[in-house]
């Protein structure tokens, strides 16, 4: 499964294979010195490469394996060299910092490595927020392609979705409050030209006469420009269509923010400010886990919820029922009903992003 996933985003052969999984990896939790950790990692890399080499020599499935091994060899060698060069530097850091530094791309981790990373994060969150976190890594459900519907004629611009989202997703609360949903207020008579929109409207009560409201969040494009521009594959599209970010892989270049036509991505310009008593401990690794400074983040359709059969938080929070959600591949789903029977449109369709976020009106 994970292999298929990796291929689908173009990382291709670098996703781990079954062969690699066979090799037992002793956990090095007992290591006292961080330098030692690095050394064991180096020797492990070499050992793995050597075993792979031996195996591929014996096996007959030919070119594919050989190519893979050669590439893996260069890679391991370089990582080993990198670790070697930075050895004096790293030995002055704590073991945890070293592990963070050398942590792999999520799609390249073995199951065992994922478990170790989760355990490390759980400890860290427990210390930081005083709560036991449930960090999921649940994969996409088969035969699903999530899609969203939003009935503009019902939206009253109350921003309850905005705050429900922030709470559910452990967004930074103060001194840069981060939101994954933005509600735009537009004068009636205009929907396409957003240049006259008001983002910071604050009347006593909503809705206001003469205005319509347009909530915008990540549109989970089928052709996501943000994924295309990321220089390091730190963001990708999952098989169920959700575009996710490996927060530990992002280098914070903000090219994706420049590329997104919907302003669907936000950046933690400083260390996120998330008070202990406002934490949501049910999290997904690729979704709402507490994040760090200077990495990008975005709406994931509440990946932690939808993969367990629940609605996204914004859908549940909407008091007018404007927000709909479902599986595009299921002919009986609500979203399919809406697309087939209502007048739907998508934001900036001319950019060919093939977004999966449908706005619609009463039919």
């Amino acid at each position, binding site marked *: 499964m994970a292999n298929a996933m990796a291929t689908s985003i*173009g*990382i291709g052969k*670098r996703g781990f294979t079954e062969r690699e999984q066979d090799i037992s990896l002793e956990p090095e939790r007992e290591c006292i010195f961080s330098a030692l950790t690095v050394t064991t990692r180096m020797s492990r890399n070499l050992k793995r490469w050597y075993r792979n080499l031996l195996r591929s020599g014996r096996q007959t499935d030919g070119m594919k394996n050989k190519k893979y091994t050669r*590439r893996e060899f*260069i*890679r391991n060698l*370089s*990582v080993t060299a*990198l670790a070697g060069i930075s050895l004096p530097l790293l030995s002055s850091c704590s073991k945890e910092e070293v592990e963070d*530094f050398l942590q792999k*791309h999520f799609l*390249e981790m073995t199951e065992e490595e994922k478990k170790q990373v989760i355990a490390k994060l759980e400890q860290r969150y427990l210390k930081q927020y005083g709560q036991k976190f449930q960090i999921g890594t649940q994969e996409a459900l088969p035969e699903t392609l999530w899609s969203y519907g939003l009935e503009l004629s019902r939206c009253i611009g109350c921003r309850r979705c905005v705050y429900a989202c922030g709470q559910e997703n452990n967004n930074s609360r103060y001194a*840069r409050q981060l939101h994954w949903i*933005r509600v*735009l207020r537009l004068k009636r008579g205009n929907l396409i*030209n*957003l*240049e*006259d*929109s008001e*983002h910071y409207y604050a009347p006593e009560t909503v809705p206001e006469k003469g205005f319509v409201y347009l909530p*915008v969040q990540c549109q989970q494009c089928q052709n996501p*420009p943000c994924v*295309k*521009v*990321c*220089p*390091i*594959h*730190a963001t990708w599209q999952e098989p169920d269509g959700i575009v996710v970010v490996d927060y530990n*892989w*992002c*280098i*914070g*270049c*903000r*090219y994706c*923010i*420049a*590329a*997104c*036509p*919907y*302003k669907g991505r*936000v*950046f*933690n*310009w*400083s*260390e996120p400010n998330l008070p202990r008593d406002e934490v949501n401990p049910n999290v997904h690794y690729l979704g709402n886990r507490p994040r760090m*400074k*200077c*990495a990008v983040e975005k709406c994931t359709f509440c990946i932690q919820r939808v993969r367990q059969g629940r609605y996204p938080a914004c859908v549940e929070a909407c008091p007018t029922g404007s927000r709909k959600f479902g599986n595009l591949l299921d002919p009986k789903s609500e979203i399919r009903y809406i697309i087939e029977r209502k007048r739907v449109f998508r934001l*900036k369709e001319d*950019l060919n992003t093939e977004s999966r976020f449908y706005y619609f009106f009463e039919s």
Partner: protein
Amino acid sequence: MESLQDLMKETWHFYKKTLILVFKGSKIYYAWCFFLLAIIIVGFVFYWKQHEMGLIETNMTDQVSWGLYIANFTYLVGMAAAAVLLVIPAYIYQFKPIKEIVVLGELFAASSIIMAILFVMVDLGRLDRFWHMLPLIGTMNFPASLLAWDVLALNGYLFLNIFIPVYLLVKFYYRKEPNWKFILPFILLSIPWAVGIHTVTAFLYNGLPARPFWNASILAPRFLASAFCSGPAIIIVIFQIIRKVSAIHLEDKALFKIAELIAYAMFLNLFLLGAEIFKEYYSNTVHIASFKYLFEGLREHTVLVPWIWAAMTMNVIAFFLFLIPTTRKRLSTLNLGCLLIIVGVWIEKGPGFIIPGFVPDPLGEIHEYVPNLLEYMVSFGIWATGFLIFTLLMKVAIPIETGEFSHTGYEKTGKGGIV
């Protein structure tokens, strides 16, 4: 043909001598170096604060997510690419006055590229994860991401512009005729590569339909045209300084030739800009907003307006100064023109190009960005780093070019021919 081992040995010996040379100098040389060093240290202290606290220490926001750093980066890539304007006349047309100084131009390109790369590095939120971007080690998104292309293009160009001049200088140092069969392919490669780095950098912005201001196919040619103005302009100024403080002989003829090239490039630059402005204003679609923000201001938001008009005025004046032969061939007006171009183009393709791309943002929000003290200080630090590197390179390269610094031992033993 000598073996590779000999080459390595010679190079190593050369480096040892070089180090000694770099540490010896006049009082002015020391003062200049320590002045730059002081700026670098101040810049680094400010950068460290940004590194610890995060990019919140800058004035960048989710609305304007790239600022002064990326503006400087864009400008400097152009500077580096401009070395090609010396390489072509020197090696292809064998224009002698320029051939004498071409090595200095290549070293200038190398220093510019180093600055450009530093500007990208300080702009990264997580410099600690920089290794994710390295080819083969990290997970580079090549060829989909233009930023991955840029990493390869810039580093390749840096390699060429260090390798070629160092090879030639080592040869000159040992008073040997360079093996042209060996080095000429690299020199020829550096010509399309120079065009390449700036094209790739233009495509970096060009390929984003989310930003209509950048999404114009005229962008890459515009970038090249403006680069061929600002780069040579700064080279003319630097060469005059070098001529003053060192024994190197530089003919006025070379400077005037470069100035003539600038006049052509500036004409192209103004023409392409005019074409862009016509298209936007005549068709008058919603995409004109960024142009209006830049040239007229949107409602009460007018920060960039005085800047861009100052830049336009400077560019036009400089164009006429370089067009008319009498003003081009008088050093005082030539230098005035250079200064106007250096500043004018910096405004036009630095802040005047990056910021309007973000204003208004894709959802129509207008957020004005002005860099803060920290961004200025870090930028000054990087510019000082570039100048220091260039100064040290010149400290070695110039005595070799003039023949003051050479390997005398070779002449005694009788090895190698004298040029």
